[in-house]
């Protein structure tokens, strides 16, 4: 099996893990699955680095491991582990089965879009590229379909992972600083969203996005 095939296969695993992130009942569960997904991402980076001979990507795999597999999940679990909104339940607007079906539609659409890209760099890894694009939209869907504001944060994380994977696939030799910039920013974004989420929980006594409706018009 060639390296590119392995990348495409691992990309398929990403879709499974992101569905787990979205359908997990509790935010801490989402954090765990997010760590798992990031581990798959790191594996993709390493495989790709070996296949195309990019030492930049090896370094990315390192920073991604630190920020996405360790830092973000640990921070989220520590910050969010104690708070809960029992009335909200899982906070899904649509049942998990529909979520899975919707994800399938997104993936098919993304495969169709990516098929039209004629970039030579993309030829061998089109399935993975389609997955990275669908990842982005799955994250967006997660934000729209989840009422629990903490799970919306994970929706953003999925979007960010999607862009990150696209970057790795299309420009494997991007300067290391580019990647550090994106990773640091994402960590800050997650921390700030989590802190705001905590403040909201303290003030409103709920994590339900539908309760945030004082401002209108």
């Amino acid at each position, binding site marked *: 099996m060639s390296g590119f095939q392995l990348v495409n296969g691992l990309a398929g695993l990403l879709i499974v893990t992101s569905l787990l992130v979205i359908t997990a009942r509790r935010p801490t569960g989402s954090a765990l699955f997010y760590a798992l997904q990031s581990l798959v991402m790191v594996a993709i980076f390493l495989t790709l680095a070996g296949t195309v001979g990019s030492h930049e990507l090896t370094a990315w795999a390192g920073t991604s491991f630190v920020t996405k597999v360790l830092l973000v999940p640990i921070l989220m679990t520590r910050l969010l582990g104690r708070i809960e909104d029992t009335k909200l339940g899982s906070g899904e607007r649509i049942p998990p089965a529909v979520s899975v079906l919707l994800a399938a539609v997104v993936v098919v659409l993304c495969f169709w879009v990516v098929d039209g890209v004629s970039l030579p760099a993309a030829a061998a890894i089109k399935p993975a590229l389609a997955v990275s694009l669908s990842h982005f939209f799955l994250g967006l869907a997660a*934000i729209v379909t989840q009422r629990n504001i903490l799970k919306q944060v994970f929706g953003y994380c999925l979007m960010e992972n999607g*862009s990150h994977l696209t970057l790795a696939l299309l420009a494997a030799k*991007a300067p290391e600083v580019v990647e550090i910039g*994106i990773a640091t920013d994402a960590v800050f974004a997650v921390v700030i969203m989590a802190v705001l989420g905590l403040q909201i929980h303290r003030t409103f006594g709920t994590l339900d996005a539908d309760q945030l409706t004082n401002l209108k018009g």
Partner: protein
Amino acid sequence: MVPSLLPPLMLAAPLAAAIAIAILPARDGGNRTIEAVHVASGVVVALLALVSVARVIGGADLVAFGGWLYVDPLAAIFVGLVGVVGLLTGLYAISYVRHDVEHGELTPQKHKIFYVFFNLFVFTMMLAVTANNIVMMWVAVEATTLGSAFLVGLYGRRSSLEAAWKYVIICTVGVAFGLYGTVLTFADGAAAFGDPEKAVFWTSLMADAGKLDPMLAKIAFVFVLIGFGTKAGLFPMHAWLPDAHSEAPSPVSALLSGVLLKCALFVVIRYLAVTSRAVGPEFPQMLLMMLGFLSVAVSAFLVYVQHDLKRKLAYHSIEHLGLIALGLGIGGPLGIGAALLHAINHSFCKALLFCSSGNVLMMYGTRDLQQVKGLLRRAPASGILLMAGALALAGFPPFNVFVSEFLIFAAGLAQGWWALMIVTGLLFTITIAALIHIISGSVLGKVPETVPVGDVGWRALAPMWALLAIVLVLGVAVPQPVAHLVREATAVVLGGDRSAAIAAPWQTPAEPVAELAPRAEPRI
């Protein structure tokens, strides 16, 4: 290109101030040292910004850190806005925040947090407009959201936390689209140039835009427009804007509306230039025109029905950003020049109005226009400032907004967009009515018996008079350096011709508007 220390210094000053303030202790009633550091930083940034602008006008494009930071005429416009509006709103903030501390709305700790994040916010905006590295540009725009989120939620009330949450979630998600667009552009460039180090710079992308894959360039522009358009408050991604603008402390609202929206727009303009070169101007201009017109159309009605002064002003921001997008969409030297001039004019005018809304809040304790009556009799200076700001925003001469609005309409008519410009003009009459309503209902009229007479202090009024002076000067005659800068910046966007003059027909150097753009057949 000239290597220069100015861009790094402009960035270092507010960052150093933010760190220094974070270290200083919070005291009861607010620590005066914190205010001194804050003012010093504002003055230094404004001076450095103006010196940079002067050097760029003198013909030198400034670069630093191996091309990572880059100030060309286009960037110089926005550097100037961050510097000057940042200083004036920063000065206004002193008395506003003191007032809030005295009235127990902010704790000494929050007083300190305000100044830390205010300076961080200025730093991130300055970083966004001086970035040449497109990834850093994205990082900076994302950082502006993170830097200002706590400012929006500063009061810790239910409504302000809700506004902060919506602001963060909508803008980060929006800007994630910007990241995808950035990544696509970068990957496209890396493949086309065969050199990833080069593809990360806007200047190289611009120079070799012809080599980019047209399909990817188009997709990337759509992502960029959705992403940074969210941050610029364009319809239909504008939902965060009225909440964030109304819940933030007034000086921050002024900065959000006056500068932040323009920083996001600046990034869109950068990509507009690259995309126009790669695939021709029709595709990006059509998108900008569509979003711009829709923003104007939707916000015009929302402005009218609002009774909350700051929300009303926020919807005006959406409308004027829409008009700027429309100008960019019309294109040509006149359309783009007029749009850039309108960005400058709207910044100063809106900063003045949001500071006015701050005065109203300090004196009446409410933003509800139905309860604010007789401002002119109660506080003549604040009354005149609010009235002048409202008339300026409504587009009356001799104020600055009139000039650039006129030019955008002229550009549209010269390009043959008759129906579009007429409808836009009609939509603007609705907002004029809304602004006249503010003047007749709240500035004029009798003071309620219960309200004591007296204005806010000179510390709040002085920066506002300065803003009004700028609004008037820009309205009477666009000063030569500004006109020159706008002309050069337009040339940067169009990638060439630096000859077209940007001035209304009655201003010097007078040139008939029709000669600037070729006459065209009506299109709609």
